[in-house]
């Protein structure tokens, strides 16, 4: 059964906006309602086509009315987690993501038309610590949940989701736990971090990164919306990059800073201010996070087209990030030294 009226949250952001655009381009879907607190930027609105843009705060009870009036049958919650960004204080973010999700779930619970809910969650729900197993499967839980912050919010929100699933067993709920999304166009904490030329890193630690290409992220959400696949799925590319290795591939220069003061030091660098150095993020950079994607392949029926390394390289290419020392020079230096040595031999 293909959805007929879809509501997509987070439409002013990359994932939500482009997902709404993809769904709007499908004549099989009657209506696409693209929702967000702020209207999408003009370049994104162009893509949205026939999708109806509704500017409303998720925390506003009006959301229930939107769902009832349009007889929405499928809700795609793409703005469950607003990762810390510059501009908004943590408190505001928490309000938007946690309270917004609660409000949306309340509206879905009372709705008689909603039969499917797709939620874009994140692998951050597993946390990041030295006591973690190397790879997380869907059944695992965070070993250490901080008292507050991003990870705590995600864990809370997934808790509300479980409550919703219990109360409305008739609604098919798909929870997609994404690895960090990267690509040519998307703007995330990580994409800003690796674009730095001088990159403050956590001294003595080197996290393992698993990345997901933005196109794969959209394809997964689109598939979850069209095909009913209830359950929890980890989504991420194959393979791993270390933070230090990614910085080298992006051509930055890593400056190791002791973990507790990394945020303070980063604030001294003007460019690094656009990057988040919350305790959650420092832990993530220190230990990293890898998700097991077996269930994505077997049950969800999708294999990411980009590996972690390919996704990262695609991002580096598109942003035209230039290494501090040109690789051509490195190769030339290598060749010259060898040539010199050959003369000596």
């Amino acid at each position, binding site marked *: 059964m293909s959805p007929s009226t879809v509501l997509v949250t987070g439409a002013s952001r990359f994932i939500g906006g482009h997902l709404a655009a993809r769904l709007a381009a499908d004549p099989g879907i009657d209506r696409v309602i693209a929702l967000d607190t702020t209207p999408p930027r003009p370049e994104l609105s162009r893509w949205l086509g026939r999708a109806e843009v509704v500017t409303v705060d998720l925390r506003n009870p009006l959301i229930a009315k939107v769902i009832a009036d349009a007889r929405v049958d499928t809700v795609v919650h793409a703005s469950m987690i607003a990762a810390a960004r510059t501009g908004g204080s943590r408190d505001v973010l928490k309000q938007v993501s946690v309270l917004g999700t609660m409000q949306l779930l309340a509206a879905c619970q009372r709705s008689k038309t909603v039969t499917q809910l797709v939620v874009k969650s994140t692998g951050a729900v597993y946390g990041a610590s*030295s*006591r*973690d*197993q*190397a*790879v997380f*499967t869907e059944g*695992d839980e965070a070993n250490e949940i901080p008292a507050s912050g991003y990870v705590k919010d995600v864990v809370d929100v997934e808790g509300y989701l479980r409550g919703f699933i219990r109360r409305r067993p008739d609604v098919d709920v798909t929870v997609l736990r994404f690895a960090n999304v990267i690509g040519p166009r998307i703007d995330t904490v990580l994409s800003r971090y690796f674009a730095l030329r001088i990159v403050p890193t956590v*001294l*003595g*630690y*080197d996290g*393992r990164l698993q990345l997901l290409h933005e196109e794969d992220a959209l394809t997964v959400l689109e598939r979850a919306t069209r095909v009913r696949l209830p359950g929890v799925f980890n989504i991420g590319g194959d*393979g*791993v*990059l*270390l933070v*230090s*290795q*990614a*910085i*080298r*591939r992006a051509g930055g220069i890593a400056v190791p800073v002791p*973990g507790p003061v990394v945020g303070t030091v980063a604030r001294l660098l003007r460019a690094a201010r656009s990057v988040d150095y919350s305790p959650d993020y420092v832990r993530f950079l220190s*230990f*990293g996070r*890898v998700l097991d994607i077996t269930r994505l392949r077997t049950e969800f029926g999708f294999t990411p087209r980009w590996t972690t390394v390919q996704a990262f390289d695609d991002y580096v290419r598109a942003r035209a990030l230039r*290494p501090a*020392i040109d*690789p051509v020079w*490195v*190769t030339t230096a*290598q*060749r*010259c*030294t*060898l*040539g*010199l*040595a*050959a003369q000596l*031999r």
Partner: protein
Amino acid sequence: MIPLPGRTGEAAQAQLAAPAEPRWYRELSNLLAFARRRMNGEYAVDQFGFDPDLADHVLLPLLRPLYRTWFRVQTTGVDHLPATGGALVVANHSGTLPVDALMTAIAVHEEHPAGRHLRMLGADVVFRIPVLGSLARKSGQTLACVPDAERLLNSGELVGVWPEGFKGLGKRYRDRYKLQRFGQGGFVSAALRTRTIIIPCAIVGAEEIYPMIGDVKPLARLLGTPYFPVTPLFPLLGPLGMVPLPSKWYIEFGEPVRTDAYEPGAADDPALVFNLTDQIRETIQQTLHRLLIHRQHPFFG
């Protein structure tokens, strides 16, 4: 400088560096290629953070002299290690610092024709310590927990485990070569569940590198370590006291114990798991006694 044709790729370099090339030239060429790979981030790391490029070119070469010259390790029974596929190496633990684990990894890599990497399971403390933790992951270690052990064994890796943990590592010198309790048999159930063989391994020599005669408990609590060792030279001689004593080492890999004959679900039978754990523990203890009789002097062999 005109580069010679075909000298760009590493394979081409290796080919050019045929017998005619002097050894130093070949090594220089390898070193430069390594430096370039590191600078550009062109190397592969697995899910556990294992970096074979770094292990093969930096970590193992650094440890090799310790293995060959300092401890003069004599390794036997490497033919019991499979050339491919998963297997679990279970060994005794001693020596205050886990040097025995590193030497076992060298023994596996150097003495076995397949040159396999031993994937070691380490305590969580290791991964909490800066530098050491990330080096441990890069050298192929991961956290000693059931999911990681099974994941490694299922992907056909050679896994090393030291079930005595800190009880073995931090025991007094007077208790040397007395095997401590073997955890809860988690390693046996992991092997049973993945149907991989278990290879008992006995290490003689590690007990004498830092003979622990005392333990300053308050300092250990302060530092958050399991113990604070006092050896004849440490902390008396300060950093110099951290040089391991050059004991004579023997490592023996024993007869593999097969786990595929048990029916599925055997891993959930505690009695069976205890028996198998005891059997392996007993094998290691007996091998230790035999090797000790063979070794006449702790330092001269």
